[in-house]
């Protein structure tokens, strides 16, 4: 063996070029694996870090009642799964009046201690983010307090200072039990705080304007103490996000005191916030949930889902499931690519030395020795190139992350979250061992296979070096047949010969009689096509993926804050409402931290669509699919007429113009005699695991909208299509009230019907009246002038029920007095806002609240939904995926090129002797080029064919892996990437033909003919 080892070493050294090529191949494959997984782990670590910085490192959080706190802490202390517990005590609730803001009413304040480690040290320690101190510091000793920066310079007043009596609850509080200070608040101010207790702080509800709810528990708060503090600092609040200590469901502000573990023990507190991390022995989110339940019992607790996802407990959310699968598909594709790269490099190196092996065998080397020699070579190569590949991989990622750090940080949304230093490389030993192990296994496998083949070659065959020429069985039979017929008949001209002349014939012979040689080229081409197509479909699904993900999370557009506004007052004219909405939107827009994105109105109205508007065939297939049921809200009549509730969406005129352009119709707004609308031609159903999209509208036409204008005393009104197909108003009369004891409205279940239908047992009498004749109903004709294929994303917040039929109109109709809309629709308004760039989220939140307060009346409801945190989180996740796509594409392109080039140049080097013989018999450069082009053309077509098959499979797998995250997007073959790959193949093959020609030009024929190696 030692002789063979030294032989191997010498052969490696002697054939430096070949050794270097193989080593580069192995190193590149290892580098690829390392790089992809290191990128994933680095980004994952960065995203985890982002969550920790912006939302804290806690896994479970609970607001525990004072009476339970001690017990919960004891339980956690005793539990072996507990890693860290930090507790912040709520010592009581208090209130103040800011005389600067006399309209603002009373503000509630929870006095909360800074969190401390409740299990071991008792010192200040937080699993939750700490608030940003804007001035001074956080309290560190008893008697110190930090206040929200909104209280800076506030002068604390009495209840009598308030202008607004709306907050009646405060009258329950005596004016001397408000927070009190001698001067306007600043650092060093002395402040006296009465503390209320005797109720559960966690019951405090969301909105300050509903602060009455603090009594919803039925217990009135009681003064439990009065304490004095010195103000040591002001901090910036986080209002909407529960992502720092002072974030809460917006019941109150927080005044922060020093940690005081004694408070709980002495039962001075009214409740506590408990944050917990567990040791990492749990297998899944469910396990953590079960555990948390065992600790907290009935107390409501929350899991930190975003953090858990990044910690690998990403169940529940489809995108995380998808992401896991997708990374697996990518790993699989990369593994195949790495395998192709390494085994190609190696099998070529072995094939090149077949002659040597024959010689060695002829000198008495056993098969084992030959195989051993090749394996030794593999091990020696691996020892050098695998570590090199790992260094390259990690180094490459480090280089990319260092140079593109801020760009990447922006992309995944971690810039401005205290992580401006960018993304650090997370080197994980598992990844390195995995990549190295995989490469080693592939290396040994790809060495073993050709080694066994080489060891079977007879010495003579090996010396002749013709062992890779094999006739197929078919060719052998043909040969025998020709021999039997005894003629030296020329065979018919093949396609390549016809195109390329005699060199084409040479190519044909090479392809058909040395097919093994071409196979590795075809394989590497196919792998490259697969790689590029996978990268392509990966990026292709990004758009539907992000759309699908946003939909899944109920986020439909870029709005950070959506405001819903409606008026309870049925008598209020819609026109007035629309005007008020405009004012409200304007008021938001005027605030410096807010930007108005747009607003729209939505409502449901009874609509009749005359025959001809809908596509009868689509309606039929809808019925066949069983989608038209009593409960579907879809009632079709003869000839695909329709009578049921429709959605009306009134949009800003600019959006109206845009939609009309998309539908290809004139956007001018007509008067009430000719009101125009656009239909949204999108009805999605999901049945039997299948998404189906129905395009129900087919022709423009007239729609009639019906509004109830009055309510008859003795009947309730409904709509039905009459026998003649015209819309009818149905007056459903109750039985006479005098008989009510004997004949109540009685519905019974009709079990002969296929569906659960309640039938009228006769106590309700029905009277039909043509809709146009009913005094209780008024109508409005609307002309549907065209269709758009999709509900614009910005409108989807406006719509509540089914998406069919949905009609879009310009909102100026609501302002006109001469149509029915102005009087009879009672729409909801939807205002979309964006937090201005560089604006403080807290400030934005304050401004939203201020405007809502200003516009609130007893009859209206205005609700704000701030989604900026969810959006930021989503954006960073999608950015991460996008980044993965970019890196994956970049790396695969490199690997694909390296792979093909490696294979081609190697096979060209292998054929040096053959080229020399051909040259010595008179093949000129042109002929050589033709022969090579003919061969490459064949390789290209075969590679492309197999590549397309492989690409279809991997693309399908990817699509399958993304699954429901794609929101029902259908499978698409990434043809663009395939075409690009095909072009790439042509370029690479052309380059190798040129390389081969260049080589043959500088080739010393005499030398090549003499040479032993090639």
């Amino acid at each position, binding site marked *: 063996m030692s002789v063979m080892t030294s032989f191997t070493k010498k052969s490696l050294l002697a054939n430096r070029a070949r050794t270097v090529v193989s080593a580069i191949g192995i190193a590149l494959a290892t580098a690829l694996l390392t790089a992809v997984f290191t990128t994933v782990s680095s980004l994952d670590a960065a995203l985890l870090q982002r969550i920790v910085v912006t939302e804290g490192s806690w896994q479970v959080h609970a607001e525990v009642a004072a009476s339970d706190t001690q017990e919960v802490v004891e339980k956690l202390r005793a539990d072996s799964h507990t890693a860290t517990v930090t507790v912040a005590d709520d010592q009581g609730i208090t209130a103040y009046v800011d005389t600067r803001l006399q309209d603002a009413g009373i503000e509630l304040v929870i006095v909360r201690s800074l969190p401390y480690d409740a299990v071991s040290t008792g010192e200040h320690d937080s699993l939750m983010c700490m608030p940003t101190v804007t001035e001074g510091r956080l309290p560190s000793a008893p008697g110190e307090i930090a206040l929200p920066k909104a209280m800076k310079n506030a002068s604390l007043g009495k209840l009598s200072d308030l202008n607004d009596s709306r907050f009646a609850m405060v009258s329950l509080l005596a004016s001397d039990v408000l927070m009190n200070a001698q001067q306007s608040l600043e650092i060093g101010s002395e402040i006296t705080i009465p503390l209320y207790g005797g109720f559960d702080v966690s019951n405090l509800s969301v909105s300050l304007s509903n602060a009455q709810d603090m009594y919803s528990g039925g217990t009135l708060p009681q003064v439990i103490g009065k304490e004095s503090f010195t103000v040591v600092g002001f901090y910036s609040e986080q209002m909407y996000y529960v992502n720092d200590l002072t974030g809460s469901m917006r019941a109150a502000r927080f005044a922060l005191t020093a940690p005081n573990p004694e408070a709980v023990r002495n039962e001075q507190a009214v409740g506590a916030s408990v944050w917990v991390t567990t040791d990492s022995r749990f297998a899944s989110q469910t396990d953590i949930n079960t555990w948390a339940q065992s600790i907290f019992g009935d107390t409501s607790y929350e899991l930190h889902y975003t953090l858990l996802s990044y910690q690998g407990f990403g169940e529940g959310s489809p995108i995380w499931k998808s992401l896991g699968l997708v990374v697996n598909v990518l790993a699989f594709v990369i593994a195949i690519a790495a395998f192709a790269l390494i085994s190609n490099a190696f099998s070529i190196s072995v094939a090149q030395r077949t002659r040597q092996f024959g010689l060695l065998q002829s000198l008495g080397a056993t098969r084992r020795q030959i195989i051993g020699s090749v394996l030794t070579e593999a091990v020696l190569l691996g020892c050098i190139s695998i570590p090199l590949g790992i260094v390259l991989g990690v180094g490459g990622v480090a280089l990319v992350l260092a140079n593109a750090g801020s760009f990447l940080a922006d992309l995944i949304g971690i810039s401005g979250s205290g992580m401006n230093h960018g993304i650090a490389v997370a080197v994980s030993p598992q990844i390195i061992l995995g990549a190295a192990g995989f490469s080693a296994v592939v290396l040994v496998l790809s060495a073993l296979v050709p080694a066994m083949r080489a060891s079977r070659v007879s010495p003579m065959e090996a010396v002749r070096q013709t062992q890779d020429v094999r006739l197929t069985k078919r060719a052998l039979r043909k040969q025998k047949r*020709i021999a039997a017929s005894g003629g030296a008949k020329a065979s018919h001209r093949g396609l390549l010969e016809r195109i390329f002349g005699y060199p084409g*014939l040479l190519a044909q012979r090479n392809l058909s009689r040395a097919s093994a040689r071409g196979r590795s080229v075809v394989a590497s081409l196919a792998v490259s096509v697969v790689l590029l197509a996978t990268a392509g479909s990966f990026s292709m699904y990004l758009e539907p993926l992000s759309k699908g993900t946003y939909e899944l999370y109920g986020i439909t557009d870029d709005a950070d804050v959506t405001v819903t506004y409606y008026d309870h007052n049925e008598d209020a004219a819609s026109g007035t409402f629309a005007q008020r909405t405009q004012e409200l939107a304007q008021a938001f827009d005027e605030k410096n931290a807010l930007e108005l994105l747009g607003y729209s109105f939505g409502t449901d109205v009874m609509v009749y669509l005359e025959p001809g508007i809908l596509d009868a065939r689509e309606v039929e297939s809808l019925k066949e699919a069983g989608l038209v049921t009593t409960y579907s809200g879809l009632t079709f009549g003869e000839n695909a007429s329709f009578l049921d509730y429709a959605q009306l969406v009134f949009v800003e005129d600019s959006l109206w113009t845009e939609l009309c352009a998309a539908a290809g119709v004139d956007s001018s707004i007509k008067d009430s005699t000719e009101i125009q609308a656009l239909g949204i031609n999108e009805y999605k159903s999901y049945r039997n695991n299948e998404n189906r999209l129905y395009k129900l509208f087919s022709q423009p036409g007239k729609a009639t909208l019906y509004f109830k204008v009055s309510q008859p005393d003795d009947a309730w009104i409904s709509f039905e299509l009459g026998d003649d197909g015209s819309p009818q108003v149905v007056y459903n009369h109750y039985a006479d009230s005098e008989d009510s004891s004997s004949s109540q409205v009685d519905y019974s279940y009709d079990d002969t019907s296929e569906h659960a239908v309640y039938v009228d047992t006769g106590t309700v009498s029905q009277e039909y009246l043509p809709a146009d004749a009913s005094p209780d109903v008024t109508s409005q004709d609307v002309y549907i002038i065209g269709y758009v294929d999709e509900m614009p994303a910005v409108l989807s917040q406006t719509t509540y029920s089914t998406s069919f039929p949905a009609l879009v109109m310009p909102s100026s109709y609501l302002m006109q007095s001469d149509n029915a809309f102005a009087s009879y629709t009672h729409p909801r308004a939807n205002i979309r806002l964006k937090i201005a760039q560089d604006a403080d989220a807290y400030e934005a939140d304050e401004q939203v609240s201020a405007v809502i307060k200003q516009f609130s009346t007893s009859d209206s409801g205005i609700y704000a939904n701030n989604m900026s945190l969810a959006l930021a989180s989503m954006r960073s996740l999608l950015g991460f995926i996008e980044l993965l796509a970019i890196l994956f594409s970049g790396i695969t392109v490199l690997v694909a090129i390296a792979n093909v080039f490696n294979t081609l140049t190697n096979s060209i080097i292998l054929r040096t002797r053959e080229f020399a013989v051909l040259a010595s018999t008179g*093949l000129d450069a042109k002929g050589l080029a033709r022969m090579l082009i003919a061969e490459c053309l064949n390789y290209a077509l075969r590679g492309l064919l197999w590549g397309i098959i492989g690409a279809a499979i991997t693309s399908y797998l990817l699509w399958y892996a993304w699954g429901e995250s794609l929101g029902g997007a259908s499978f698409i073959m990434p043809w663009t990437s395939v075409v690009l790959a095909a072009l790439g193949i042509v370029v690479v093959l052309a380059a190798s033909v040129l390389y081969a020609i260049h080589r043959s030009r500088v080739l010393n024929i005499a030398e090549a003919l003499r040479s032993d190696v090639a």
Partner: protein
Amino acid sequence: MYGEGDAVTKALDDVSLTIQQGEFVAIVGSSGSGKSTLMHLMGGVDKPTSGTVLLDGKDVYARSDAELAIYRRREVGLVYQFYNLIPVLDVVENITLPMSLDGRKPDDGELMVLIHTLGLEGREHHLPNQLSGGQQQRVAIGRALLGRPAVVLADEPTGNLDSHNTAEIMELLQRYNKENGQTLVVITHDPDIAAVANRVITIEDGKIASDVQKGSVS
């Protein structure tokens, strides 16, 4: 024909010789004396670093690459010790290779005669790896002879063969030399082969040590 070489390794140094058409020349010398280099120079595959190779008074290496390829197809036939057949081409295809490269179609009759002469009947469609060494060498000779190039250059054509095959191959080469007047240059170690040549040139250390003319050119 005139050749002179001055390579860096000085395989041939200041060699000058002329070969008449139809001559059968044996070039002998010890290993590494420069015999093969001389043959490659004449065959148009190895450019001399200095000096010229003339065929019919024309400088072989003054030709362009394409013209040189045509020279190799038409004017010379090369036979090597290790046959150097194209493994993917069968017997007929290997033999007709230079002609086919020239875009010419061999005369079927002539080809049949050649194959018969070479003793390769019934093996027309065998691949080289289905043939014995002697048969492979005969294919290589066939390739060199078909199309009747002016010069046949053979480098140790029998170096790999047994005495029976050696005799047959040499007889074949001689026959073509005599019957068709093709110039035959054989590089050999074998004194028996040298013995049948018209002229024996001995090369030592890249120089002509002796040049013995034995009889008239037939």
